[in-house]
Every structure is written in structure tokens, then in C-alpha cells.
């Protein structure tokens, strides 16, 4: 029986939602193909996540627990994943396409002599391998890519699949792991996190995103107020992170974060392809822009043509009233 293995990413002490989306899809692939659905979690507290993982159908969870995984570093993560992959020998090893994954995916494929398809919107099993759809050419178009190999790595864009609970009691496999100091050539000197309070854009149910139209502190204040009453994360277009108005970690787009919240409010964003590629999977899109021809209106479910400085105050007030 072959195995479909899903990597479960942990960020800030929580299971990344996008990993569970991938696991849900892998579970359905395993069910329909008669394969075993398994998961691997690599973290300083890896064993504490087994309960959350088995809810989504992994019948076996490989746990690699070590304090070295407190912060992301590619060397130990690669070593752990290589070890598990060699032992489990999955026909498919799937990941959420996080920055952590991007840091090691190619190296893991090379290490394990596996085929790899990165950053896909969807994937399925075919005879001898995997077929996937993925955005290319700066996300202007899609292509279909096939990987024929007995080992295929796949990374999946967030929001590509729905969560599907399928509770099982998983068998836990605790994997022995240790790193020699001599193996660690790189040093993580520090992490400058975008303020600890900010809502993780990948997990946020709602996001308010600011674009070039947000010109000043008053504009930023309106964005913050709207985000606050919606309990939303704050994101920004590339223009605003490049100019330093918002931190680069808040950039939403093809080269920034790809998000898929229930509600996405684009404020003063024109809707360039690269930005849309980062949020097109959102359930409901609202756009506020004073240019009626802005491309953002082509993807918005609700498009408000107007000056954001005039629209946001009554918009915020009305939402406050509705939420009571």
C-alpha cells in the first residue's frame, strides 16, 4: 500500500490552516486510491499537535520533536524531513506553500531524488505520478504539469482546498532526531517579527488591505479602525510595503503572501495582476477605489466607486451598528 504524506507546518505555536487544507485533500486522495494517509510534524512541541492533526484524517502521525525547531531553520528541518521521507517512502509528500516550505522544498527533492511541483492550485494522482495546475508567468495564466516518479513532492497555495474534518485516532511514530553542532553552519541571529499582536494573514478570516490610495496617517488610521471592528488582519499592496508605509511581511501578492480569507476588503488598491494573484481565492471581495475602471472591480463581489476617505467612515460606522 502506498502512502500519501502531508507536512503539517507550525507557526507561532499553532497548526497552519493551509497545512490542514492540504491534509484534507490528501485524505480524500488516499481514500479514493487505497493509499495510507499520514502526516509529519516537526516542531519544538510537535507531539502536542497530534490531536489537531488526526481530526483531519491522518491515520499515522510522524512526530519530530526537538528544541532546535523553536524557530525555522532550513538545515535541521531538511534533515528531519529527509529522515522521515526515507523511512516512510511516500509516493506523494505534500506541503502548504509557506516561506518555510519554499526554503527547503527544492533541497529535499534533490536529497531524495524526488520529482517536485511547487506552488500548485490543485493536484491529483495519475498513473505513475501526479498532475497539477499552477499559476505561471507572474500568475497571468495557468499550466498543467505532470510529474512521473515514484516519489513526488507537491506544495500547495493556501486557500486551494477546503478543510474537511475526518476524525481518526492516529498511530503516533516518534522519530529520533539529533543535530551535531558541526552540522549547523548557518546561524539564526535574530527574528524581527512584525509586531506580535498582528493577526497572521494566512489564518485570518478577514483581511483589510491598503493600497496606494491610502496616502497618509489618517488613511492608515481608517484601515486600522476597519480591521479592528472586523477582527481582521491588515495587509498591503506592494507599493505600500516598498515605500515603507507598511512592513514587508504584510505584502499581499504573487511575491508576497497568498491569502484566502472569508472577507477581503481592498482599499485604494488598483488590482494589478500580481496583487490579485495573492487574494483571488478569497470568498468575498470588497473593493473601494475612486477609479471606476480600476481592474480590482473585475474581481470584486462588491465594488464601491468612491474616495476611501469619504467611504470608510460611514462604512465603519454601519458595520459597528450591525455588529452591535
Amino acid at each position, binding site marked *: 500500500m502506498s502512502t500519501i504524506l502531508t507536512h503539517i507546518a507550525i507557526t507561532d505555536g499553532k497548526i497552519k490552516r493551509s497545512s490542514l487544507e492540504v491534509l484534507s485533500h490528501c485524505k480524500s486522495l488516499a481514500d479514493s486510491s487505497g493509499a495510507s494517509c499520514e502526516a509529519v510534524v516537526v516542531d519544538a512541541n510537535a507531539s502536542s499537535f497530534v490531536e489537531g492533526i488526526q481530526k483531519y484524517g491522518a491515520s499515522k502521525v510522524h512526530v519530530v520533536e526537538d528544541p532546535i525547531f523553536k*524557530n*525555522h531553520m532550513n538545515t535541521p528541518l531538511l534533515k528531519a524531513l529527509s529522515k522521515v521521507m526515507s523511512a516512510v517512502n511516500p509516493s506523494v509528500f505534500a506541503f502548504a506553500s509557506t516561506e518555510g516550505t519554499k526554503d527547503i522544498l527544492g533541497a529535499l527533492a534533490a536529497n531524495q531524488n524526488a520529482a517536485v511541483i511547487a506552488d500548485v492550485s490543485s493536484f491529483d494522482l495519475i498513473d505513475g505520478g501526479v498532475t497539477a495546475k*499552477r499559476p505561471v508567468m507572474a500568475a497571468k495564466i495557468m499550466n498543467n504539469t505532470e510529474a512521473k516518479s515514484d516519489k513526488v513532492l507537491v506544495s500547495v497555495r493556501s486557500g486551494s482546498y477546503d478543510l474537511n474534518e475526518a476524525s481518526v485516532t492516529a498511530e503516533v511514530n516518534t522519530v529520533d532526531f539529533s543535530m551535531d553542532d558541526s552540522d549547523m553552519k548557518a546561524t539564526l541571529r*535574530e527574528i524581527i517579527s512584525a509586531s506580535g499582536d498582528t493577526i497572521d494573514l494566512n489564518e485570518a478570516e478577514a483581511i483589510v488591505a491598503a493600497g496606494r490610495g491610502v496616502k497618509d496617517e489618517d488613511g492608515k488610521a481608517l484601515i486600522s479602525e476597519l480591521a479592528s471592528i472586523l477582527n481582521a488582519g491588515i495587509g498591503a499592496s506592494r507599493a505600500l510595503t516598498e515605500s515603507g508605509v507598511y512592513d514587508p511581511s504584510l505584502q499581499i501578492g504573487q511575491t508576497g503572501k497568498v491569502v484566502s480569507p472569508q472577507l477581503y476588503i481592498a482599499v485604494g488598491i488598483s488590482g494589478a495582476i500580481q496583487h490579485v494573484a495573492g487574494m483571488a481565492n478569497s470568498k468575498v471581495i470588497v473593493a473601494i477605489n475612486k477609479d471606476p475602471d480600476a481592474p480590482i472591480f473585475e474581481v470584486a463581489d462588491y*465594488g464601491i466607486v468612491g474616495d476611501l476617505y*469619504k467611504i470608510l467612515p460611514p462604512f465603519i460606522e454601519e458595520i459597528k451598528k450591525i455588529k452591535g
Partner: protein
Amino acid sequence: MKFYICIKMVPDVYAPIQIKEGELIMDADRMVLNAYDASAVEEALVLKEKHGGEVEVVCIGPAKASETIRKALAMGADKATHILATGDEEYDSASYAKILSAFFKDKEYDVIGLGKQSQDTDSGLTGSMVAEHLSLPYTTNAVGLEVENGNLVVKRQGDTGQEMIELPTPCAVTCSNDMNDPRIPNLKGIMASKRKPIDQIEISSLGLEEASLQAATKVTSYEEKPARQAGKKYDGEADEVARQVAQLLDTEANVL
């Protein structure tokens, strides 16, 4: 510091694209230096200007790629190697990584730099594959580079924020285009580039079996992105439309 920057010639993503029966139709003349690689070249040049050293570029591509290589030389790179490939081989990231790794096997360098992904495939795999083949410490998605005590200090965009990572040399790094604005070659640079050497080599000279380079992944077709349906546009008195849409988000969309 000796930098080797891997560069790729890619289609201009701003050029019109057509898809006919699953095939991609583009203007074959509109090819450019991959923007992410341009950032890698630029940062290497900045560090060379600051700390001294050399910047060499290496490019796998057809004859036409010499134009892309000239651009990097015109920016200020010192010399280049052009590894000839016809373009019909349908190489994937792994194939490119094997070729580059074979090229680097007998070379001396401090830093191998690459763009973090190429604009045509957006795969982002080759850099870490090369690092793995060459057993180099590496990091990816660099938004800043510095040299300190002979080490490379990288500011990297991670999942939780910006990470400062120190790499001993030799090492590899993949670069985000958020790192800088690559310089546009000036006339002096363009003239100088014509005198800089481009060493042309065949893949076969790298001692690789063609069979080992066969791509495990293959693009079978292209298609348009599924269009998201546009919803409704609300135009009118600001106060009115703002409140109207807020209400709809509650009653119709159910997202409040």
C-alpha cells in the same frame, strides 16, 4: 568576495500572451533578464563596490541568451559563462540545478547567488537544489545582504517576520526582487560589456549524462486563469453606498 550569480533569460511577463489549444503563444523576441536574478546581480555589484571582489555570471540558455548575459555585464559584472542549451530540451528546475552544480564543482567562490524564482515558472526550486547538490549552507528569499567578517549576513523574509541569518562562505543565497532596484546599464557600461569575456561551453563538457538531465516534470498544457466573476459596482453618494454595501455584507454575503 567572489560572487557567482546564476541568471536566466525568460519571456517578458508584461508582453501579451495568447493561449491556443493549450499552447502558449508569445513574441519570441521579447525575452528579458529574470527580474529576481537582476536583483541578485545588483546586490552582488553593490557588495563588490563596498568590499571589493569579483562578480561573475553564469547562464544556461540558447544562443539568444547572450543578450541577457550582455545586460548583466553592462550592469557591471566582470565576466560570464554561457552554458549552451537549445531550449528544446524541456529542462525543469532539477535539470538546471544539475547542470549548474556540475559547473560549480571545480570552481572557487564565496557566494552563489540566484533569483529566488524565475518569472516564467515561478517554481523557486533551483536555488535550494543547487545548494543541496553542492552541500552549501544557504538561505532563500533574501531581502538584504551584507558582508561581515568574511561571512554573508542575510535579511530573509520568513513566515513570522524578518530573519537575520549569518552564513559562512562558501554559501548560496536566493534573492527576492524586493531587495533592490537593479541599475539600468548606462552607455559606459554597455560599451564596456562588449569587451568583457563570455566563455561559451557545451553541457556535454560538464561530464553529465543527457539521460540524467531528463526532466521528471513536464508541462502538458496552458490555460487561462479561471475568471472570477465580477460582482456589482456601487456608485453614488458616499455615505449611502458605504452603508448599503455594509448591509449587504451582512444580509447577502453573510460575512459580518
